[in-house]
Protein backbone atom coordinates (compact mmCIF):
# COMPACT_ATOMS: atom_id res chain seq x y z
CA UNK A 1 0.00 0.00 0.00
CA UNK A 2 1.63 3.24 -1.08
CA UNK A 3 1.12 6.75 0.22
CA UNK A 4 -1.33 7.77 -2.48
CA UNK A 5 -3.77 4.97 -1.78
CA UNK A 6 -3.58 5.79 1.94
CA UNK A 7 -4.41 9.37 1.03
CA UNK A 8 -7.32 8.20 -1.09
CA UNK A 9 -8.65 6.09 1.78
CA UNK A 10 -8.38 9.08 4.06
CA UNK A 11 -10.25 11.24 1.57
CA UNK A 12 -13.01 8.62 1.38
CA UNK A 13 -13.28 8.41 5.17
CA UNK A 14 -13.43 12.19 5.45
CA UNK A 15 -16.08 12.34 2.73
CA UNK A 16 -18.21 9.71 4.43
CA UNK A 17 -17.91 11.11 7.96
CA UNK A 18 -18.12 14.82 7.23
CA UNK A 19 -19.74 14.88 3.80
CA UNK A 20 -22.44 12.29 4.30
CA UNK A 21 -22.91 11.56 8.00
CA UNK A 22 -22.23 14.85 9.79
CA UNK A 23 -23.69 17.14 7.12
CA UNK A 24 -26.47 14.64 6.57
CA UNK A 25 -27.26 14.54 10.28
CA UNK A 26 -27.32 18.35 10.38
CA UNK A 27 -29.55 18.41 7.32
CA UNK A 28 -31.89 15.82 8.79
CA UNK A 29 -32.16 17.71 12.08
CA UNK A 30 -33.12 20.76 10.05
CA UNK A 31 -35.49 18.75 7.85
CA UNK A 32 -37.02 17.08 10.89
CA UNK A 33 -37.84 20.40 12.50
CA UNK A 34 -39.03 22.07 9.32
CA UNK A 35 -41.11 19.16 8.01
CA UNK A 36 -42.68 18.49 11.40
CA UNK A 37 -43.52 22.19 11.62
CA UNK A 38 -45.10 22.11 8.18
CA UNK A 39 -47.14 19.08 9.15
CA UNK A 40 -48.49 20.98 12.13
CA UNK A 41 -49.18 24.13 10.04
CA UNK A 42 -46.25 25.95 11.61
CA UNK A 43 -43.14 27.45 10.04
CA UNK A 44 -40.33 25.93 12.11
CA UNK A 45 -36.88 27.44 12.57
CA UNK A 46 -36.26 29.94 9.76
CA UNK A 47 -34.06 32.59 11.36
CA UNK A 48 -30.49 31.30 11.30
CA UNK A 49 -29.25 31.49 7.74
CA UNK A 50 -31.39 31.06 4.62
CA UNK A 51 -34.53 29.01 5.44
CA UNK A 52 -32.99 28.37 8.87
CA UNK A 53 -30.44 26.02 7.31
CA UNK A 54 -27.76 26.99 9.81
CA UNK A 55 -29.98 26.15 12.80
CA UNK A 56 -28.26 22.78 13.53
CA UNK A 57 -24.88 24.51 13.68
CA UNK A 58 -26.25 27.10 16.07
CA UNK A 59 -27.57 24.21 18.17
CA UNK A 60 -24.15 22.59 18.21
CA UNK A 61 -22.51 25.84 19.33
CA UNK A 62 -25.08 26.08 22.09
CA UNK A 63 -24.48 22.49 23.19
CA UNK A 64 -20.69 22.95 23.28
CA UNK A 65 -21.00 26.08 25.41
CA UNK A 66 -23.25 24.35 27.93
CA UNK A 67 -22.07 23.04 31.27
CA UNK A 68 -21.32 19.34 31.43
CA UNK A 69 -23.09 17.91 34.45
CA UNK A 70 -22.37 14.43 35.79
CA UNK A 71 -24.70 13.22 38.57
CA UNK A 72 -22.99 12.72 41.93
CA UNK A 73 -23.87 9.04 42.20
CA UNK A 74 -23.12 8.25 38.57
CA UNK A 75 -20.28 6.03 37.44
CA UNK A 76 -18.23 8.77 35.87
CA UNK A 77 -16.04 6.65 33.62
CA UNK A 78 -18.93 4.76 32.03
CA UNK A 79 -21.01 7.91 31.94
CA UNK A 80 -18.32 9.47 29.75
CA UNK A 81 -17.75 6.31 27.75
CA UNK A 82 -21.36 5.66 26.71
CA UNK A 83 -21.80 8.55 24.25
CA UNK A 84 -18.41 7.75 22.77
CA UNK A 85 -19.51 4.17 22.05
CA UNK A 86 -22.72 5.44 20.46
CA UNK A 87 -21.01 7.95 18.20
CA UNK A 88 -18.15 5.64 17.23
CA UNK A 89 -20.58 2.96 16.15
CA UNK A 90 -22.82 5.45 14.38
CA UNK A 91 -19.94 6.92 12.40
CA UNK A 92 -18.26 3.64 11.50
CA UNK A 93 -21.23 1.60 10.26
CA UNK A 94 -21.30 3.58 7.05
CA UNK A 95 -17.88 2.22 6.12
CA UNK A 96 -19.23 -0.85 4.34
CA UNK A 97 -21.78 0.94 2.21
CA UNK A 98 -20.77 1.65 -1.39
CA UNK A 99 -21.73 5.24 -2.19
CA UNK A 100 -20.86 5.04 -5.87
CA UNK A 101 -19.44 2.87 -8.60
CA UNK A 102 -15.72 2.69 -9.38
CA UNK A 103 -14.38 5.91 -10.78
CA UNK A 104 -11.15 6.60 -12.63
CA UNK A 105 -9.19 9.50 -11.21
CA UNK A 106 -5.57 10.41 -12.05
CA UNK A 107 -5.11 7.06 -13.76
CA UNK A 108 -6.23 5.14 -10.71
CA UNK A 109 -9.34 3.09 -10.25
CA UNK A 110 -11.04 4.14 -7.04
CA UNK A 111 -13.76 2.06 -5.48
CA UNK A 112 -16.22 4.35 -3.75
CA UNK A 113 -16.48 2.36 -0.55
CA UNK A 114 -14.47 2.86 2.62
CA UNK A 115 -14.06 -0.72 3.80
CA UNK A 116 -14.27 -3.23 0.99
CA UNK A 117 -14.61 -6.33 3.11
CA UNK A 118 -15.99 -9.79 2.43
CA UNK A 119 -18.33 -10.02 5.41
CA UNK A 120 -20.08 -6.84 4.23
CA UNK A 121 -23.50 -6.62 5.78
CA UNK A 122 -22.53 -8.80 8.76
CA UNK A 123 -20.08 -6.10 9.83
CA UNK A 124 -23.01 -3.70 10.05
CA UNK A 125 -25.04 -6.03 12.25
CA UNK A 126 -22.03 -6.64 14.47
CA UNK A 127 -21.49 -2.93 14.94
CA UNK A 128 -25.12 -2.01 15.56
CA UNK A 129 -25.16 -4.63 18.32
CA UNK A 130 -22.27 -2.79 19.95
CA UNK A 131 -24.28 0.39 19.56
CA UNK A 132 -26.79 -0.98 22.07
CA UNK A 133 -24.05 -0.87 24.70
CA UNK A 134 -23.82 2.89 24.30
CA UNK A 135 -27.48 3.34 25.15
CA UNK A 136 -27.69 0.64 27.82
CA UNK A 137 -24.53 1.80 29.60
CA UNK A 138 -25.73 5.38 29.43
CA UNK A 139 -28.93 4.31 31.13
CA UNK A 140 -27.17 2.25 33.75
CA UNK A 141 -24.33 4.61 34.63
CA UNK A 142 -26.59 7.63 35.14
CA UNK A 143 -27.95 6.12 38.36
CA UNK A 144 -31.42 7.33 37.51
CA UNK A 145 -34.45 5.08 37.33
CA UNK A 146 -35.80 6.65 34.17
CA UNK A 147 -32.46 6.33 32.44
CA UNK A 148 -32.16 2.74 33.55
CA UNK A 149 -35.64 1.91 32.25
CA UNK A 150 -34.78 3.57 28.96
CA UNK A 151 -31.57 1.60 28.68
CA UNK A 152 -33.30 -1.67 29.52
CA UNK A 153 -36.03 -1.10 26.99
CA UNK A 154 -33.45 -0.26 24.40
CA UNK A 155 -31.56 -3.49 25.04
CA UNK A 156 -34.73 -5.61 24.92
CA UNK A 157 -35.99 -3.85 21.82
CA UNK A 158 -32.77 -4.06 19.88
CA UNK A 159 -32.27 -7.73 20.65
CA UNK A 160 -35.80 -8.59 19.51
CA UNK A 161 -35.61 -6.58 16.34
CA UNK A 162 -32.09 -7.49 15.36
CA UNK A 163 -33.33 -11.04 14.68
CA UNK A 164 -36.01 -9.92 12.26
CA UNK A 165 -33.59 -7.45 10.72
CA UNK A 166 -31.05 -10.16 10.05
CA UNK A 167 -33.58 -12.71 8.82
CA UNK A 168 -35.36 -10.27 6.53
CA UNK A 169 -32.29 -9.80 4.36
CA UNK A 170 -31.55 -13.53 4.15
CA UNK A 171 -33.63 -13.62 0.99
CA UNK A 172 -31.43 -11.04 -0.69
CA UNK A 173 -28.24 -12.74 0.41
CA UNK A 174 -29.57 -16.01 -1.01
CA UNK A 175 -30.51 -14.40 -4.31
CA UNK A 176 -27.24 -12.59 -4.75
CA UNK A 177 -25.08 -15.27 -3.19
CA UNK A 178 -22.76 -12.79 -1.52
CA UNK A 179 -22.51 -10.63 1.60
CA UNK A 180 -20.53 -7.92 -0.18
CA UNK A 181 -22.68 -4.87 -0.58
CA UNK A 182 -20.90 -3.67 -3.72
CA UNK A 183 -21.70 -7.00 -5.39
CA UNK A 184 -25.32 -6.78 -4.25
CA UNK A 185 -25.60 -3.33 -5.81
CA UNK A 186 -23.90 -4.44 -9.02
CA UNK A 187 -26.43 -7.25 -9.38
CA UNK A 188 -29.22 -4.73 -9.04
CA UNK A 189 -27.93 -2.68 -11.98
CA UNK A 190 -29.21 -5.33 -14.38
CA UNK A 191 -32.62 -4.97 -15.92
CA UNK A 192 -35.66 -7.12 -15.39
CA UNK A 193 -37.49 -5.97 -18.46
CA UNK A 194 -37.10 -2.88 -20.64
CA UNK A 195 -36.07 -0.02 -18.33
CA UNK A 196 -37.35 -1.60 -15.13
CA UNK A 197 -34.24 -2.32 -13.05
CA UNK A 198 -33.73 -5.50 -11.10
CA UNK A 199 -33.97 -3.79 -7.74
CA UNK A 200 -34.45 -6.13 -4.83
CA UNK A 201 -37.63 -4.37 -3.72
CA UNK A 202 -39.33 -6.02 -6.71
CA UNK A 203 -37.98 -9.46 -5.79
CA UNK A 204 -38.29 -9.20 -2.00
CA UNK A 205 -41.21 -6.90 -1.09
CA UNK A 206 -42.02 -8.78 2.13
CA UNK A 207 -38.40 -8.74 3.17
CA UNK A 208 -38.38 -5.00 2.60
CA UNK A 209 -41.40 -4.36 4.79
CA UNK A 210 -39.96 -6.45 7.62
CA UNK A 211 -36.60 -4.74 7.26
CA UNK A 212 -38.21 -1.30 7.22
CA UNK A 213 -40.19 -1.90 10.41
CA UNK A 214 -37.18 -3.45 12.14
CA UNK A 215 -35.01 -0.55 11.02
CA UNK A 216 -37.41 1.86 12.70
CA UNK A 217 -37.00 -0.09 15.92
CA UNK A 218 -33.22 -0.27 15.48
CA UNK A 219 -32.89 3.49 15.16
CA UNK A 220 -35.19 4.10 18.17
CA UNK A 221 -37.55 6.18 16.09
CA UNK A 222 -41.26 6.58 16.57
CA UNK A 223 -43.40 4.47 16.63
CA UNK A 224 -40.72 2.47 18.47
CA UNK A 225 -38.95 5.19 20.43
CA UNK A 226 -39.59 3.58 23.81
CA UNK A 227 -36.01 4.07 25.09
CA UNK A 228 -36.57 7.81 25.12
CA UNK A 229 -40.35 8.04 25.45
CA UNK A 230 -40.61 11.58 26.80
CA UNK A 231 -44.07 11.35 28.38
CA UNK A 232 -43.14 8.42 30.61
CA UNK A 233 -39.34 8.42 30.96
CA UNK A 234 -38.45 12.15 30.99
CA UNK A 235 -35.69 11.76 28.41
CA UNK A 236 -35.02 8.04 28.58
CA UNK A 237 -31.40 6.98 28.54
CA UNK A 238 -30.09 10.51 28.00
CA UNK A 239 -31.99 12.13 30.88
CA UNK A 240 -28.78 12.78 32.81
CA UNK A 241 -26.74 13.98 29.88
CA UNK A 242 -26.02 17.61 29.17
CA UNK A 243 -24.05 19.65 26.72
CA UNK A 244 -22.12 17.98 23.96
CA UNK A 245 -22.40 14.52 25.53
CA UNK A 246 -26.13 14.75 24.91
CA UNK A 247 -25.26 16.23 21.53
CA UNK A 248 -23.28 13.10 20.68
CA UNK A 249 -26.30 10.90 21.39
CA UNK A 250 -28.43 13.19 19.28
CA UNK A 251 -25.91 13.15 16.46
CA UNK A 252 -25.55 9.38 16.58
CA UNK A 253 -29.33 8.97 16.45
CA UNK A 254 -29.45 10.93 13.21
CA UNK A 255 -26.31 9.27 11.85
CA UNK A 256 -28.02 5.95 12.52
CA UNK A 257 -31.08 7.06 10.59
CA UNK A 258 -28.89 7.97 7.64
CA UNK A 259 -27.03 4.68 7.83
CA UNK A 260 -30.29 2.73 8.03
CA UNK A 261 -31.63 4.63 5.05
CA UNK A 262 -28.40 3.96 3.18
CA UNK A 263 -28.60 0.24 3.96
CA UNK A 264 -32.18 0.10 2.74
CA UNK A 265 -31.24 1.97 -0.42
CA UNK A 266 -28.29 -0.31 -0.99
CA UNK A 267 -30.11 -3.56 -0.34
CA UNK A 268 -33.51 -2.86 -1.87
CA UNK A 269 -33.34 0.20 -4.11
CA UNK A 270 -30.26 -0.37 -6.21
CA UNK A 271 -27.83 1.76 -4.21
CA UNK A 272 -26.18 4.33 -6.46
CA UNK A 273 -27.85 2.94 -9.55
CA UNK A 274 -29.70 5.47 -11.66
CA UNK A 275 -31.80 3.45 -14.12
CA UNK A 276 -30.76 3.85 -17.76
CA UNK A 277 -28.05 6.40 -16.89
CA UNK A 278 -25.30 4.16 -18.24
CA UNK A 279 -26.82 4.41 -21.74
CA UNK A 280 -26.80 8.20 -21.82
CA UNK A 281 -23.21 8.27 -23.04
CA UNK A 282 -21.90 10.54 -20.31
CA UNK A 283 -18.25 11.00 -19.41
CA UNK A 284 -17.45 8.27 -16.84
CA UNK A 285 -16.46 10.84 -14.21
CA UNK A 286 -19.71 12.78 -14.62
CA UNK A 287 -21.61 9.50 -14.49
CA UNK A 288 -19.79 8.64 -11.26
CA UNK A 289 -20.71 11.95 -9.66
CA UNK A 290 -24.28 11.57 -10.90
CA UNK A 291 -24.45 8.15 -9.25
CA UNK A 292 -23.22 9.55 -5.93
CA UNK A 293 -25.91 12.24 -6.20
CA UNK A 294 -28.52 9.57 -6.94
CA UNK A 295 -27.43 7.66 -3.85
CA UNK A 296 -27.68 10.76 -1.65
CA UNK A 297 -31.05 11.64 -3.18
CA UNK A 298 -32.42 8.18 -2.41
CA UNK A 299 -31.16 8.47 1.18
CA UNK A 300 -32.81 11.88 1.50
CA UNK A 301 -36.15 10.42 0.40
CA UNK A 302 -35.87 7.75 3.07
CA UNK A 303 -34.93 10.28 5.75
CA UNK A 304 -38.02 12.30 4.85
CA UNK A 305 -40.05 9.11 5.11
CA UNK A 306 -38.58 8.49 8.58
CA UNK A 307 -39.57 12.00 9.60
CA UNK A 308 -43.05 11.73 8.14
CA UNK A 309 -43.67 8.49 10.03
CA UNK A 310 -42.39 9.99 13.27
CA UNK A 311 -44.89 12.83 13.11
CA UNK A 312 -47.80 10.64 12.03
CA UNK A 313 -47.89 7.57 14.24
CA UNK A 314 -48.42 7.31 17.99
CA UNK A 315 -45.99 5.34 20.13
CA UNK A 316 -46.50 1.63 20.74
CA UNK A 317 -46.89 0.24 24.21
CA UNK A 318 -44.08 -1.99 25.41
CA UNK A 319 -46.11 -5.20 25.16
CA UNK A 320 -47.32 -4.26 21.68
CA UNK A 321 -43.75 -3.62 20.65
CA UNK A 322 -42.66 -7.05 21.82
CA UNK A 323 -45.71 -8.70 20.26
CA UNK A 324 -45.05 -7.18 16.88
CA UNK A 325 -41.41 -8.10 17.06
CA UNK A 326 -41.74 -11.72 18.09
CA UNK A 327 -45.20 -12.76 16.90
CA UNK A 328 -45.46 -10.87 13.65
CA UNK A 329 -42.13 -9.75 12.23
CA UNK A 330 -40.05 -12.78 13.12
CA UNK A 331 -42.46 -15.38 11.63
CA UNK A 332 -42.90 -13.20 8.58
CA UNK A 333 -39.14 -12.94 8.11
CA UNK A 334 -38.72 -16.71 8.49
CA UNK A 335 -41.59 -17.34 6.06
CA UNK A 336 -40.01 -14.99 3.55
CA UNK A 337 -36.71 -16.80 4.01
CA UNK A 338 -38.38 -20.19 3.44
CA UNK A 339 -40.45 -19.13 0.43
CA UNK A 340 -37.41 -17.56 -1.20
CA UNK A 341 -35.49 -20.79 -0.67
CA UNK A 342 -38.26 -22.91 -2.16
CA UNK A 343 -38.68 -20.64 -5.18
CA UNK A 344 -34.93 -20.64 -5.77
CA UNK A 345 -34.90 -24.42 -5.60
CA UNK A 346 -37.68 -24.73 -8.15
CA UNK A 347 -36.28 -22.19 -10.62
Amino acid at each position, binding site marked *: MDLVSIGISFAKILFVIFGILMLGAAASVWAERR*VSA*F*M*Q*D*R*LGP*NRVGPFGLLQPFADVVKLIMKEDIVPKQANKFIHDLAPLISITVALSTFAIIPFGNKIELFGREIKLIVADIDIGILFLFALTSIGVYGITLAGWSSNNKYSLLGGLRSAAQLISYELSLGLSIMGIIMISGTLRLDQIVLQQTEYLWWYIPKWNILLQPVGF*IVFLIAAFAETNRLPFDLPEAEPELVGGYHTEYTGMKFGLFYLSEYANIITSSAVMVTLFFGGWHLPSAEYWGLHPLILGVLQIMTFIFKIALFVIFFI*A*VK*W*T*LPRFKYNQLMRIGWQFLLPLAILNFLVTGIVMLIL
Partner: protein
Amino acid sequence: MEKNKKIIRTKDLNILQKLYIPEIIKGLKLTLSHVIRPRFTQEFPEERFKPEPSFRGRPVLVAENGIERCVACGLCARVCPALAIEVQASETELEKERYPVKFEINMARCIFCGFCEEVCPEEAIVMSNEYLLVFSSLDDAIFGKDRLLKPIEEVKDRLEFLRQFRYNKQETK
Protein backbone atom coordinates in the same frame (compact mmCIF):
# COMPACT_ATOMS: atom_id res chain seq x y z
CA MET B 1 -63.21 -11.15 37.13
CA GLU B 2 -66.68 -11.81 35.74
CA LYS B 3 -67.03 -8.20 34.69
CA ASN B 4 -63.94 -8.32 32.51
CA LYS B 5 -65.53 -10.92 30.26
CA LYS B 6 -68.32 -8.56 29.37
CA ILE B 7 -66.11 -6.06 27.58
CA ILE B 8 -67.47 -5.72 24.07
CA ARG B 9 -65.61 -4.01 21.30
CA THR B 10 -67.97 -1.52 19.83
CA LYS B 11 -66.24 -1.57 16.49
CA ASP B 12 -64.48 -4.57 15.09
CA LEU B 13 -61.70 -3.86 12.64
CA ASN B 14 -61.86 -5.35 9.20
CA ILE B 15 -58.95 -7.18 7.62
CA LEU B 16 -57.52 -4.10 5.89
CA GLN B 17 -57.50 -2.22 9.16
CA LYS B 18 -55.94 -5.14 11.01
CA LEU B 19 -53.13 -5.25 8.46
CA TYR B 20 -52.27 -1.80 9.76
CA ILE B 21 -50.24 -0.76 6.76
CA PRO B 22 -53.08 0.79 4.68
CA GLU B 23 -54.05 2.76 7.77
CA ILE B 24 -50.49 4.00 8.17
CA ILE B 25 -50.50 5.14 4.56
CA LYS B 26 -53.77 6.99 5.19
CA GLY B 27 -52.21 8.73 8.17
CA LEU B 28 -49.11 9.64 6.20
CA LYS B 29 -51.30 11.08 3.46
CA LEU B 30 -53.01 13.33 5.98
CA THR B 31 -49.83 14.65 7.56
CA LEU B 32 -48.09 15.09 4.22
CA SER B 33 -51.10 16.97 2.83
CA HIS B 34 -50.56 19.53 5.59
CA VAL B 35 -47.04 20.20 4.33
CA ILE B 36 -48.33 21.99 1.25
CA ARG B 37 -51.16 23.84 2.95
CA PRO B 38 -50.87 27.63 3.31
CA ARG B 39 -49.62 28.80 6.68
CA PHE B 40 -51.17 31.50 8.81
CA THR B 41 -48.11 32.40 10.85
CA GLN B 42 -47.28 36.09 11.07
CA GLU B 43 -43.52 36.48 11.32
CA PHE B 44 -43.49 39.03 14.07
CA PRO B 45 -40.77 41.63 13.73
CA GLU B 46 -41.34 41.96 9.98
CA GLU B 47 -45.06 41.36 9.84
CA ARG B 48 -47.18 43.01 12.49
CA PHE B 49 -50.70 42.39 13.60
CA LYS B 50 -52.94 45.39 12.86
CA PRO B 51 -55.67 45.38 15.51
CA GLU B 52 -59.29 46.23 14.79
CA PRO B 53 -60.81 49.33 16.48
CA SER B 54 -62.44 46.99 18.99
CA PHE B 55 -58.99 46.00 20.28
CA ARG B 56 -58.07 47.27 23.76
CA GLY B 57 -54.38 48.18 23.64
CA ARG B 58 -52.57 50.46 26.07
CA PRO B 59 -54.64 53.44 27.29
CA VAL B 60 -53.62 56.83 25.91
CA LEU B 61 -54.65 60.42 26.48
CA VAL B 62 -56.27 62.04 23.47
CA ALA B 63 -54.50 65.24 22.44
CA GLU B 64 -56.07 67.96 20.33
CA ASN B 65 -53.49 70.35 18.84
CA GLY B 66 -50.99 69.04 21.37
CA ILE B 67 -53.19 69.74 24.41
CA GLU B 68 -54.90 66.90 26.26
CA ARG B 69 -58.70 66.81 26.37
CA CYS B 70 -58.60 65.65 29.97
CA VAL B 71 -60.21 67.91 32.58
CA ALA B 72 -58.74 65.98 35.49
CA CYS B 73 -62.10 64.96 36.95
CA GLY B 74 -60.44 61.85 38.38
CA LEU B 75 -63.25 59.44 37.40
CA CYS B 76 -60.80 57.13 35.66
CA ALA B 77 -58.59 56.98 38.74
CA ARG B 78 -61.70 56.26 40.82
CA VAL B 79 -62.99 53.47 38.58
CA CYS B 80 -59.66 51.80 37.89
CA PRO B 81 -59.87 48.34 39.51
CA ALA B 82 -56.11 47.95 39.57
CA LEU B 83 -55.44 51.42 41.01
CA ALA B 84 -53.08 52.13 38.17
CA ILE B 85 -54.07 55.73 37.42
CA GLU B 86 -52.99 58.79 39.37
CA VAL B 87 -54.30 62.26 38.48
CA GLN B 88 -53.44 65.65 39.98
CA ALA B 89 -55.65 68.52 38.82
CA SER B 90 -54.95 72.22 38.46
CA GLU B 91 -56.55 75.29 36.90
CA THR B 92 -55.83 76.64 33.47
CA GLU B 93 -56.62 79.71 31.35
CA LEU B 94 -58.09 77.55 28.63
CA GLU B 95 -61.79 77.06 28.00
CA LYS B 96 -61.86 73.73 29.87
CA GLU B 97 -60.62 75.52 33.04
CA ARG B 98 -59.09 72.38 34.60
CA TYR B 99 -56.21 70.24 33.43
CA PRO B 100 -54.08 67.46 34.92
CA VAL B 101 -50.67 68.61 36.17
CA LYS B 102 -49.74 65.04 36.60
CA PHE B 103 -51.34 62.08 34.86
CA GLU B 104 -49.65 58.77 35.44
CA ILE B 105 -50.66 55.24 34.48
CA ASN B 106 -48.66 52.45 36.01
CA MET B 107 -48.53 50.04 33.11
CA ALA B 108 -47.27 47.27 35.36
CA ARG B 109 -50.64 47.41 37.13
CA CYS B 110 -52.97 48.18 34.21
CA ILE B 111 -55.19 45.24 33.30
CA PHE B 112 -56.53 46.69 30.02
CA CYS B 113 -60.13 46.46 31.21
CA GLY B 114 -61.11 49.71 29.51
CA PHE B 115 -63.18 51.03 32.43
CA CYS B 116 -61.31 54.37 32.33
CA GLU B 117 -62.29 54.83 28.74
CA GLU B 118 -65.87 53.86 29.42
CA VAL B 119 -66.26 56.21 32.35
CA CYS B 120 -64.54 59.25 30.79
CA PRO B 121 -67.04 62.04 30.11
CA GLU B 122 -64.70 63.90 27.74
CA GLU B 123 -63.53 60.97 25.56
CA ALA B 124 -60.12 62.01 26.77
CA ILE B 125 -58.71 58.59 27.60
CA VAL B 126 -59.09 55.73 25.11
CA MET B 127 -57.59 52.34 24.56
CA SER B 128 -55.21 52.61 21.61
CA ASN B 129 -54.20 49.82 19.25
CA GLU B 130 -50.65 49.62 20.62
CA TYR B 131 -49.78 46.29 22.14
CA LEU B 132 -45.99 46.41 22.34
CA LEU B 133 -45.21 47.27 25.93
CA VAL B 134 -41.65 46.73 27.04
CA PHE B 135 -39.98 48.15 30.12
CA SER B 136 -36.80 47.24 31.88
CA SER B 137 -37.79 48.27 35.41
CA LEU B 138 -40.91 48.97 37.45
CA ASP B 139 -40.07 52.68 37.50
CA ASP B 140 -39.90 52.58 33.75
CA ALA B 141 -43.42 51.11 33.71
CA ILE B 142 -44.99 54.30 35.05
CA PHE B 143 -46.12 56.23 32.00
CA GLY B 144 -46.35 59.99 32.49
CA LYS B 145 -48.11 62.52 30.30
CA ASP B 146 -45.18 62.63 27.88
CA ARG B 147 -45.71 59.01 26.90
CA LEU B 148 -49.50 58.96 27.24
CA LEU B 149 -50.41 61.84 24.95
CA LYS B 150 -51.41 60.83 21.47
CA PRO B 151 -52.75 63.02 18.63
CA ILE B 152 -56.47 62.52 18.01
CA GLU B 153 -55.88 61.45 14.40
CA GLU B 154 -54.21 58.27 15.56
CA VAL B 155 -57.12 57.14 17.74
CA LYS B 156 -59.90 58.26 15.39
CA ASP B 157 -60.98 54.70 14.60
CA ARG B 158 -61.36 53.84 18.25
CA LEU B 159 -63.36 56.98 19.01
CA GLU B 160 -65.66 56.20 16.10
CA PHE B 161 -66.11 52.68 17.35
CA LEU B 162 -66.90 53.91 20.85
CA ARG B 163 -69.51 56.39 19.62
CA GLN B 164 -71.22 53.72 17.60
CA PHE B 165 -71.17 51.43 20.61
CA ARG B 166 -72.61 54.06 22.93
CA TYR B 167 -75.30 55.05 20.45
CA ASN B 168 -76.42 51.44 20.04
CA LYS B 169 -76.50 50.98 23.78
CA GLN B 170 -78.88 53.92 24.26
CA GLU B 171 -81.07 52.69 21.43
CA THR B 172 -81.63 49.31 23.11
CA LYS B 173 -82.65 50.99 26.32
